[in-house]
């Protein structure tokens, strides 16, 4: 391991660090309300009994602390190491995905988890990391032959790297994660550049394949997409999530109903209000103003991440930073789009805010890697 050069701290990105911490702290405040239960005695991971009225908030705080450690780990690992072990990471994640397909735990009708003796592992989180790293390596190793943009033949191998885990994850079924995985990979390719003609051909091909793909979707997935078009058609069934979420968001109006005053949330009309629909809680209790605040924080985070990407001195680091940016960005847009009725309900958490350890650790690890890229940007000068 490269010794920690003192210069690396000179390039520590304070902007990224601040947004990385402020967003989950804001999230904890929202979660305190969303998970509020006056009689809540939290049994913390089976070890301590704590009297705290919001289990989700307390556990998330613990995840955040652990996540900060994991983020430090991401910072400490040299970018070079990721380059070196990228295929290993990708291969390991792929193996885990296969293991899930074989003997994963079924939760809510989908097979996403591996039970590792009291500890559940979600291999698709590993695959996000594996794919970003691998795509960065593949694309930086094989830049477009004309030096400007890829042609179709050059995209076959990267496309293969994206497609295999996507299919495995979509089969679980976890449409949201598969989709975000695709967006990240494709985003990295587009960042480098694709010929217009090729792009057009691919888009047309995707559209042509849309119908058979639609046929392959599960009934409930089809229904969710249909319900998006007309949520009121089934207010008690598939449309319930979207309808209740829109009521929660809309009823927040400009300034919200007040902290812990959201009736949709507190009376549990809103489903999944600590996890996927946590944004609705924010919208209901903090109103439009609160929503803009969070969108602003995320925008700040993206600006910091893109600045780091743009200041790198090598393609791999750049694509690595950009890949994580796209990952978080895709999650934010899909999640918020979902809760305000712009996208189908696909079960994607809101990064850094939704309650959940896996997501928190994985996102913070990624942010640690991006911080690491920033810190080491001068280390790899062209020889």
């Amino acid at each position, binding site marked *: 391991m490269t010794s920690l050069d003192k210069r690396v701290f000179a390039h520590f990105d304070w902007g990224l660090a601040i947004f990385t911490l402020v967003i989950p702290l804001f999230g904890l405040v929202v979660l305190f309300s969303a998970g509020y239960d006056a009689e809540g005695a939290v049994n913390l991971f089976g070890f301590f009994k704590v009297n705290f009225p919001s289990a989700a908030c307390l556990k998330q705080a613990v995840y955040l602390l652990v996540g900060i450690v994991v983020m430090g780990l991401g910072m400490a690992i040299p970018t070079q190491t990721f380059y070196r072990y990228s295929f290993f990471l990708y291969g390991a994640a792929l193996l885990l995905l296969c293991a899930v397909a074989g003997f994963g735990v079924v939760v809510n009708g989908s097979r996403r988890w591996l039970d590792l003796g009291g500890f559940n592992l979600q291999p698709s989180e590993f695959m996000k990391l594996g794919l970003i790293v691998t795509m960065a390596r593949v694309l930086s190793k094989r830049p477009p032959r004309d030096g400007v943009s890829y042609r179709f033949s050059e995209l076959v191998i990267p496309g293969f790297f994206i497609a295999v885990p996507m299919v495995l994850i979509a089969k679980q079924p976890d449409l949201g994660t598969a989709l975000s995985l695709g967006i990240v990979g494709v985003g990295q390719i587009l960042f480098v550049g694709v010929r217009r003609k090729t792009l057009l051909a691919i888009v047309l091909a995707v559209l042509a394949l849309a119908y058979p793909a639609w046929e392959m979707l599960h009934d409930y997935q089809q229904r969710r997409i249909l319900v998006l078009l007309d949520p009121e058609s089934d207010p008690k069934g598939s449309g319930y999530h979207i309808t209740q979420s829109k009521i929660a968001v809309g009823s927040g109006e400009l300034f919200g109903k007040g902290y812990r005053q959201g*009736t949709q949330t507190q*009376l549990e009309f809103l489903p999944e209000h600590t996890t996927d629909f946590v944004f609705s809680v924010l919208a209901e209790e903090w109103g439009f103003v609160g929503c803009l605040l969070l969108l602003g924080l995320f925008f700040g985070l993206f600006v910091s991440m893109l600045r780091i990407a743009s200041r790198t001195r090598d*393609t791999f680091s750049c694509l690595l930073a950009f890949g994580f940016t796209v990952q978080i960005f895709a999650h934010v847009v899909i999640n918020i789009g979902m809760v305000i009725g712009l996208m189908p309900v696909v079960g994607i958490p809101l990064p850094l805010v939704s309650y959940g350890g896996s997501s928190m650790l994985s996102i913070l690890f990624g942010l640690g890697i991006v911080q690491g890229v920033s810190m080491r940007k001068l280390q790899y000068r062209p020889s």
Partner: protein
Amino acid sequence: MASFERPSLNVNSRAWIALGICAICLFVLALRLWHLQIINGHVFRDRSENNRLRMVYVPPPRGLILDRNGEVLVRNRPSFNIDFVTEDSPDPEQTVRALAEITGQPADPLIEKLTRQGKRRMYEPKLMLRDVSRDLVAKIAAQRYRLPGVIISVVPARDYIHGDLAAHAIGYIREISGEQLKNPLYAGYRMGDVIGQYGIEAKYERYLQGERGSQAVIVNAAGNKIGEAYSHLALPGSDVMLTLDRRLQEVADRALVGRRGAVVAMDPTTGDILAMAAAPRFAPSIFTSEVSKEAWADLVDGKENKLTNRVTQGVYPPGSVFKIFVAAAALSEGVVTPQERFFCPGYSMFGTRKFRCHKHSGHGSVDLYEAIVQSCDVYFYMVGQRLGVDRIYQYAHDLFEFGEPTELGIGDESSGLIPSTAWKAKYFRNPEDKKWYPGETLPVSIGQGAITTTPLQIVRGLSAVVNGGRVVKPRIVRKVVASDGRVLEETPAAPDMVRKLDLDPQILDKLKRSMVGVVEDKRGTGHRAGLPEIHGISVGGKTGTAQVASRESGNKSEDHAWFAGYAPADNPKIVVAALVENGGHGGVEAAPIAQDVFAAYFGIPDPPPESKATLKKKPALVVEVTRD
């Protein structure tokens, strides 16, 4: 390491493009949020309130119904209803089947109730069974685990303290029907509301109903009540005080037990109905719980017609009671003097047709007084011919209001019919039938033929004779008092007069003296209506035995028995009409009923039949059963 070389791509511009796309996406999200929260925010705010609040309606206690002295006739008692919140049951039909099994009810009608929607909010309880017994409540409570969503609610129900007392006047209440809900008259009512359907309950529905209270209950998504947002108390209905006298009503009701007929008593000066009894009766309480098909069929079917208020809806030929009004016409028109005598040989010839007097041996020579007292038919055949049918019509209809409803206002009223040449010309098609034949006037003169009246019309007409010629409008409600004591409606002390008859007081006096003779004269047909002499209250009246056209004309008991009378004779306070369908002789069947009512009115202990005034006077009287 080639890959760590300075990238050949223009990273900066790409980052800017990426930032632009990022900004656009976030802007689209913000735009959508603006649309949801600012533009449509109030809509969603309403919907979130709707989600959170469940309106629970609290039925108001219905107003009381009191008699004229303030004695309670109908009040409320707590009752148990079985309601069902379908949203709380995973399988509503299965739950209803279980409920049917536990209660021993057929399941199908209950399941049918499930499908009747009407205006209904989500989670609003649906009424399944009304007024169930405590035993059943206990059974249902014990099996609650089988009945998710089934609720036992306590609501006020009608308590008929006196059973079926004055059932036709009071009426009944029942759940509002689908047609009624669509009727703008019932705007504001909801499915499951119980409303007056008949009698006073229906007529004064808006007063008696009161105002429904409501509670906005805060519920969570599971539908459990977790608090109360606000509530409006139910406003009890207003009390309706009737003109009926409970004691008198009881006597009238009792007199008709086992008979079909009507008894009505009225204050001749004010028009206050003191008693209104019709038989057979129904028990209003059967409408409190579910009415079975059999019970309903029994109420509306066949000859019984239990729901018919025979006082206002029953039409009968008045028979000899009508002679009073014919006599009034004849004297006023001067076609006969009180002293003029006719000879009754027991029949009267009209052309080749023989019209019989009820006393086949004949009354001999009779003047007006004797003709009324003995109810001589021949006398009135003669007088009727002198008057002609149209003059009879003019007096009976135009002056005494026969053939016109009394507008008492409780339920539909029959108008009855007084025939005339104009009526016949209008209502018959065949030119032959349109003509009035003079021979047809004869039966009309004795209250037979096409003529029909209601018992209430008889009372109204007789009141006009005995109160000095004032035709008053009968009334049954004294006042309406709101729950806070405000008097909402009060009938004035002065009667609502239809008209003042311009009749010679001497003529009225002559008629009254004749009517007293009917009861008190030794030859009178109505002596059974008289009160014991020692009380000093003399009674006047007129009997009637109306022939009913029947295939079995040989059967004497087909005749309707009538008695219409008043007391005290010198200053009438009460006018009574009693009718017994197919009862036979008015003097035998109807007069004792009137006597009972008079006795009750004047507080005279029920005299045994033998102690009756006229009988005391003439213990050896041969009770000649005559058809008067």
